C-alpha cells in the first residue's frame, strides 16, 4: 500500500480528536513541530509525531485527573503506533507552568510559523520562555554533545565492515548532522530550523567547509558502498571537530 501525506493528516486529526474528547478543558494546547509542521513530510519515512501537548496545572496536582490524562495519552500513543506510519517515539507533554521552561535548545522550532503550528487550543508560543540557566545550558551543549559521535570512530579502523556496521555508521552520521549543527547555531545565538542550520553556520563561519556533509540524508545503506560510508563518517566527524574548533576560536 502506498503511503500518502493524507494518511499523515488523518493520523494527526485522529490524534487531536482523541485528546480533545478525553481531556476536555484540561487540554490547553497542542503544538506541532518537525517535518509535518514544516510541510516537508516524506511519506513512509517521516515519523509520527513531533508535538508538544500542554495540560492544565491541575492535572499535575490532582491525582485522579493525572491518571486519566495518562490513560488518554497512552491510548493516543497506541493509536499512533497502529496507523502503519513510521512511529518511533511519543509526543511530549508539559504542564501550563512549564511554558517558562521550554527546551532552550529547540526554541527556534516554537518561535516561527514556518517551523511549528497550533493544532488545537491556545497559541501558547508567545508565552514560551526559558530561564537564564536553561539558555546558558543550551548555548554550551554543543561542546560535550559532539562527543556523542566519537564512539563511531571505531568504524574507521575496522577491517571488514558488515551490513550492520554500515547501518550503524549511516544512522549515527544522520543523527549527528541532524542535531549538532543546530546546537552549534544555538551557541552562536542563531535561531533556525534543522534544514537551515548548516547554511546558517556557513554564513556565520565563512571558513567552515561543509561540502563533504551535504545531501547525506539521502544516502542509503548498501554493503557494496561500505568504503564510501566509511569516508562519509570520516568527513562527518572531521566536520564536527572543525566546527568545534571554529566555535572555540569565535568565542
Amino acid at each position, binding site marked *: 500500500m502506498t503511503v500518502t501525506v493524507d494518511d499523515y493528516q488523518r493520523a494527526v486529526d485522529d490524534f487531536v480528536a482523541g485528546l480533545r474528547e478525553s481531556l476536555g478543558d484540561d487540554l490547553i494546547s497542542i503544538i506541532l513541530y518537525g517535518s509535518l509542521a514544516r510541510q516537508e513530510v516524506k511519506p513512509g519515512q517521516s515519523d509520527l509525531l513531533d508535538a508538544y501537548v500542554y495540560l492544565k496545572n491541575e492535572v*499535575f496536582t490532582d*491525582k485522579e485527573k*493525572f*491518571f486519566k490524562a*495518562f490513560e488518554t*495519552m*497512552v491510548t493516543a*500513543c*497506541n493509536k499512533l*503506533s497502529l496507523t502503519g506510519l513510521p512511529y518511533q*517515539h*511519543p*509526543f*511530549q*507533554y*508539559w*504542564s501550563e507552568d*512549564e511554558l517558562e*521552561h521550554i*527546551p*532552550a*535548545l529547540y526554541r527556534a522550532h516554537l518561535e516561527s510559523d514556518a517551523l511549528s503550528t497550533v493544532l488545537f487550543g491556545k497559541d501558547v508560543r508567545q508565552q514560551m520562555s526559558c*530561564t537564564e*540557566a*536553561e539558555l*546558558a*545550558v*543550551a548555548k*554550551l*551543549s554543543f*561542546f*560535550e*554533545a559532539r*562527543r*556523542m559521535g*566519537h*564512539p563511531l*570512530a*571505531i568504524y*574507521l*579502523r575496522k577491517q571488514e565492515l558488515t551490513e550492520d556496521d554500515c547501518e550503524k555508521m549511516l544512522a549515527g552520521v544522520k543523527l549527528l548532522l541532524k542535531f549538532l549543527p543546530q546546537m552549534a547555531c544555538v551557541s552562536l545565538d542563531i535561531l533556525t530550523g534543522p534544514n537551515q542550520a548548516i547554511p546558517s553556520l556557513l554564513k556565520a563561519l565563512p571558513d567552515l567547509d561543509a561540502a563533504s556533509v551535504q545531501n547525506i540524508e539521502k544516502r542509503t545503506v548498501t554493503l557494496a558502498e561500505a568504503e564510501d560510508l566509511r569516508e562519509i563518517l*570520516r568527513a562527518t*566527524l*572531521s566536520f564536527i*571537530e572543525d566546527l568545534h574548533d571554529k566555535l*572555540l576560536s569565535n568565542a
Partner: protein
Amino acid sequence: MTTEEIEEIAGRLINALGDQSESILYYPHPFGADGFVVIFRDDVTSIVDLIADAHLCVPTETPLYCLRRSELFELSLPVYSWVYLVNRHVHMAYWLKHEGKVLFGSDIRAQLELPNPHLMLASHIGVSTHYLRSGIILDGLHRKRYLELIETLKQQIKMLMATALLLHGQWNVTAETVADQFEDSFPDPEFKQVWNEFSRLLTARSDDEHRSALEAVWLFERFIKQLRSYAQ
C-alpha cells in the same frame, strides 16, 4: 572496575596514544560506569584518527572523553543530550578531580575547574522532563514495560537528588546514601513524602503493575515540580 581491568585498559591506551598524549586518567563513578580521559597535546593533527584509536582501546560501554589540553574546561560544561549521557556526565568532573587516577603523563587535575552546579541542575531537570517524559515515561507505559519504568524513575530521582546536592557542595554520594543525604540537605516535607511513597511502592509488591507504574510517574512528576523551585 577492578584494578586489573584499569591497568589493562591503561596499558592499551598508553601503548596506542602515549606519544600523542599529555595525560591519560581514570575516574570512578558511583552511579554508572567508571571512565577514562585521554588528553591529547594541543599540537596533534588528525584528531579524528586519534579518537578512533582511543575508542578501540576501551570497551564500548565504558565512557571515554577525548580532548586536547586546551579544551580541558569542556569537561565541566553542562550538556543537554540523551538522559543516559547527562546522567553519567554531571558528576564526572568532580570524581575526576577528587578521586581520579593519573595513568600516564602529567596530573592535570589541579587545573580542572568544577562545574557550575546551577547549570548542571538546570540541564538535568531539562532532560528529565523533555526527553524522559517522551522516551521513557510515555513509551514505557505504551509498551507496558511497567516494572522497568518504575525502576528507571527510581534511579532518575536518585540521580536528580545527587545533582541537587551539588548546590550544597556535596558530590561524594552513592546510590545507597544519596536519599539520606538529600533528606538532610533538603528538609522539605514534599520531597520526604514523595520518596517515602516511592519506597513503599518498591517494597509493596502489587499485582497491578500498570497502576504501580502510574503511581511512580505521579510521584516522579511531583518530585520534578518541587525540585524546579530549588533550581530557580
